[in-house]
């Protein structure tokens, strides 16, 4: 497989000719960008550690229809949080399992397919505005196949106290399946909400999820974004989160990356107005031969914004992980207060992590701190626990959980944290549970 395969897939998709002209233009631009960029290679600095060939290992294709049987209903029952939700299987919206009641005034949630028909004016202004400039080939491919996903809009001062959930199940069909969800969040001035994107596997089919989320925060708005990625052990997952924050706004991204043979989690956050606050948290936990990439890019383009970034990795067996975090402080961005920390725990000799902080600071009156650490479980602590009668594997589990707990506790107490804890428990040493 190669770039040509994906280009063929996109061309066939676009030949359906069922889209309005403006949407068709976005798709065609996506395809031409995809072709111009080509698939990334390991010579590409951004993809240096990623086994890029895996991304074209099967002839992945979008599916037109899915059936949502008992397996899907059970997965939804297991994974869904209380409150409004949209459920997708292999990239297709499943209305029967979605819940659209209980949305507060001023909060609108709908599948993107519906929004493309009803909200053309808004989407023409927003789609791709954040993701296009720093896009790579797969972001372009997502645009070329733009069709489904979600639109969440918050009217000025709208307040959603219940988390809004998007649940993406990767099942795989007769052949290898490509899902390309696009999520658009437009938060009006002073609005506040929590969005949870959950990605999980269903069965053992070959699946490739290539998701793009674009978040636009108005002045003084606040969004907490949680991504719980727990796809199956053979799944491929690429996710790009792009945010732009207005004046005095607060944005939090909490990315939990547990599943996938290859999963790459990207966050591109930018400040567009003064006084903004941004938290980028991430926890990735891999074992077997999992490869978990984390790429963050934080753009301090304006003065007086603060950012706190903490990524932790736990890698066992022969799993591999990367953290590549860039912070750019532009010349005008005086009084920036930024910190970035990457801490990594290796549980076996064969596990590996590449942690690379990258700070580009062009302003002179700023506070920027960063730190990177890679270590193993502390032998003294292990012996201490075992000397009290705690079996070795349980001691390793306790210490690993303790290492991860900082990021779990950063999630407010409630159903989201409970879900994170349950997913994490299945990934700790001594746990035989298989993701999915």
């Amino acid at each position, binding site marked *: 497989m190669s770039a040509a395969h994906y280009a063929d897939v996109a061309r066939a998709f676009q030949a359906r000719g069922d889209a309005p002209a403006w949407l068709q233009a976005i798709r065609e631009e996506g395809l031409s960008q995809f072709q111009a960029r080509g698939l990334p290679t390991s010579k590409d600095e951004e993809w240096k550690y990623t086994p890029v060939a895996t991304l074209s290992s099967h002839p992945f294709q979008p599916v037109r229809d899915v059936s949502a049987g008992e397996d899907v209903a059970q997965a939804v029952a297991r994974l869904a949080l209380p409150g409004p939700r949209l459920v997708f299987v292999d990239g297709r919206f499943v209305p029967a399992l979605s819940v659209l009641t209980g949305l507060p005034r001023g909060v609108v949630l709908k599948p993107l397919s519906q929004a493309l028909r009803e909200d053309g004016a808004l989407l023409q202004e927003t789609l791709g505005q954040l993701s296009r400039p720093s896009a790579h080939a797969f972001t372009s491919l997502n645009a070329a196949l733009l069709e489904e996903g979600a639109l969440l809009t918050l009217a000025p001062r709208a307040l959603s106290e219940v988390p809004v959930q998007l649940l993406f199940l990767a099942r795989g069909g007769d052949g290898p399946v490509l899902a390309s969800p696009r999520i658009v969040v437009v938060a009006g001035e002073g609005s506040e909400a929590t969005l949870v994107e959950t990605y999980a596997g269903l069965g053992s089919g070959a699946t490739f999820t290539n998701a793009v989320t674009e978040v636009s925060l108005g002045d003084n708005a606040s969004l907490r974004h949680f991504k719980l990625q727990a796809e199956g052990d053979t799944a491929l997952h690429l996710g790009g989160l792009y945010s732009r924050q207005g004046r005095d706004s607060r944005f939090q991204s909490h990315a939990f990356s547990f599943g996938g043979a290859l999963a790459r989690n990207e966050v591109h956050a930018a400040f567009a107005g003064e006084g903004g606050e941004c938290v980028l948290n991430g926890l990735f936990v891999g074992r077997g031969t999992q490869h978990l990439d984390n790429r963050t890019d934080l753009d301090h383009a304006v003065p007086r914004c603060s950012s706190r970034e903490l990524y932790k990795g736990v890698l066992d067996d022969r799993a591999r992980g990367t953290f590549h975090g860039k912070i750019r402080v532009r010349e005008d961005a005086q009084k920036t207060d930024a910190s970035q920390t990457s801490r990594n725990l290796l549980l076996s000799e064969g596990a590996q992590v590449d942690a690379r902080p990258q700070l580009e600071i062009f302003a002179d009156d700023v506070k920027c701190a960063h730190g990177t650490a890679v270590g193993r479980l*502390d*032998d*003294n*602590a292990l*012996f*201490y*626990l*075992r*000397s*009290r*009668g*705690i*079996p*070795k594997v*349980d*001691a390793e589990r*306790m*210490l690993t*959980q*303790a*290492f991860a*707990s*900082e990021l779990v506790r950063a999630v407010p107490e409630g159903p989201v944290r409970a879900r994170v804890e349950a997913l994490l428990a299945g990934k700790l040493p001594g746990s035989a549970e298989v993701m999915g």
Partner: protein
Amino acid sequence: MASLLSIQDLHARVGGKDILKGINLEVGAGEVHAIMGPNGSGKSTLAGVLAGRETYEVTKGSVLFDGKDLLGTPPEERAKAGVFLGFQYPVEIPGVGNLHFLRTALNAQRRAKGEEELDAMDFLALAKEKAKLVQLDAAFMNRSVNEGFSGGEKKRNEIFQMAVLQPRLGLLDETDSGLDIDALRIVAGGVNALRSKDRALVVITHYQRLLDYIVPDHVHVMAAGRIVRSGGRELALELEEKGYGWIGAEGAAAGKAKEARP
């Protein structure tokens, strides 16, 4: 009656360096033994070897606990059999709650004995009762294991753990070092409360002061990896008077004599 702990000709090394060079020691149930000696004599190594610290390599000798070989078993199995080490330097473990840790340990030991596990409520009641022994308050128990504890708090936490786990053999490695007199009294009070006819205690110390508060049945002096003198409490008093200087010379001489043999 057979000894609870029987150490025969124990040799051990760490990082290629011989530290223990032939320890012989018999400890019976109900007895309190003090092991004294200068820095570097091998006291802490002995405690670590008995508790199963993997950095030590036993090269010769045997250790029987309740008639069974101890050296071949991992630390957690020794703990389940009833061996407890009070650490010279208790380890700080951020993110692991003190109570969660201790309940996990107690329940692992109870499972091994075929006893029912304690639920959180019952355990809390037990912990509160035992905490009084060393005057630990509840807020303290909810913090991460030893994190941010003062030296005295850490040592009190060790004795608190021993009180909850009720071992058959308590090895207290320099539990008195670095404590001011008030903390020492509290710690010693806790230890004395745990003396019983079924339990043996081996108190390792550098300072005679501890033995004013914990009165041993037997005193042993270690030097250069061997026990060079054993006696009653009066031996400790002799050390107090003369210091370790004469013991060091005697121990070194004994070592040379032994090495000279074919």
